């Protein structure tokens, strides 16, 4: 039985160990070989006048919710 447990442990360790290594190396490769992935953000274009929220509701009534969902499904 012990040999099976040992073999299973080695197999599981190999799968997990290589998965972690692949992830770490891939991040390192990206940092090492690739640069300038970011593009402009909204703050680059709104230096003097940021986005203004005209109306904000964090609670939407049930009828409004149903109507929104109906329209959403219709669009789909």
């Amino acid at each position, binding site marked *: *039985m*012990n040999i099976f*447990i*040992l073999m*299973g*442990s*080695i197999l*599981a*360790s*190999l*799968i*997990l*160990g*290589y*998965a*972690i*290594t*692949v*992830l*770490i*190396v*891939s*991040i*390192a*490769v*990206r940092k*090492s*070989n*690739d*640069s*300038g*992935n*970011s*593009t*402009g*953000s*909204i703050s*680059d*274009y*709104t*230096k*003097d*006048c940021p*986005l*203004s*929220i*005209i*109306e*904000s*509701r*964090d*609670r*939407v009534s049930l009828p*409004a*919710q149903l109507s*929104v*969902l109906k*329209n*959403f499904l219709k*669009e789909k």
Partner: protein
Amino acid sequence: MIHKCTNCDSALTYNPSIRLMECMNCGSFYEVGQFSIEEEEFEQQTGTASYGSTDMFQSDWDEPVCEESVAQEQMECNIYSCTACGAELAVNGVEASTFCAYCGQPTIVFSRVSKELKPKYIIPFQFEKDQAIGAIRERLNKGFFVPKAIRDFEVERVRGIYVPFWLYDVYYHDKQYLRGTVGSGKHKKTRYYYREGEVSLNGMTADASRQLSDESSQRLEPYDTRRMRPFDIGYMSGFYADTYDVETKETDKIIIQRARELYDKEIKSNIPASNVRVLTSDPEHRINNVDYVMLPVWFLTFRHMNEPYTILVNGQTGKIIGAVPIHKKKVAAIILGAGAALSAVLTPFMYMLISSDFADGGENMLGFLFTALFISGMLYLFGWGNFAAVKKSIRLTKASTMHRFVKNRQEEE
């Protein structure tokens, strides 16, 4: 049109470090705009020398759109073309390159003298050639997985090119219903939100050249458009310029789509929930102004394994764009070595975990195995995702991709 030294009649070159035109033959210096009557007239009329003031944005704001407001003045340029990829470059006051900055082929030939649309504004090069080379070299030297042959690239193939862009001022307004989740576990709830907002996006850039892919040009951003100057041919002395070949009617849609993406992202960040999704949207947008501008880019072309690659550097900020080939042997060796070492470290823990579960009757064994496989699968997926992203970036950097891009776009026409 070339500005020449009044002392020795040699062609002048714009020097970004001192912001003056310089005669490389006799060492004389000249102010940019000294030869230009247009800029004097502009300054007399408006009382401003810079695009950067807020007033200028505001005054443009109410003007009707677009193509009518684009300056229709023209300027004379010497056009050189690449017989390999079809790229065209305007050359002013500098000897013609023997290499194409886009595809790296030694196939640049004089094509014609042409009248080109005169840009309204320009961001002069602030990052010098040596600084650009230094920044790239430093970046590549830091790269642990960059092959040595690439670190020692040939410096002769660095070209400063003014790339044409359309500069947009856009108004965007939207009424949205959004859905998000709050809480976690058993307390997880779906919430609905409503937001109406508006934003003025000033100085959004759209690439006006077919030579450069939209993806590459977007990665060059941001440019600080407050540092723009009224266009003067003097800024182009010693540099190359790409010629504009994309109309605003093609870029309008791209800009509106980008405005929408930026607006949605900002609105979602305003919602106190996770997994926020826009359910309904009622957008209104208006393009308030479009200007034709020239923005500075350094192009560095080098060869690796007989394949050309082009790295771009934002000529104003020094931002480097591009990916270089990976040292595959190094990557494979590290994955094999570190993977084996990590597995060896994990094995005793796994053995203890599995044997203790067996001692308890092995009830959790199946769950344990599935969890381990799921976690490993996710890690592999993220890892390969990163490798795929680098591969895609390398494909963009490959000058042959630009070559194909130009060819394909020409065939579309």
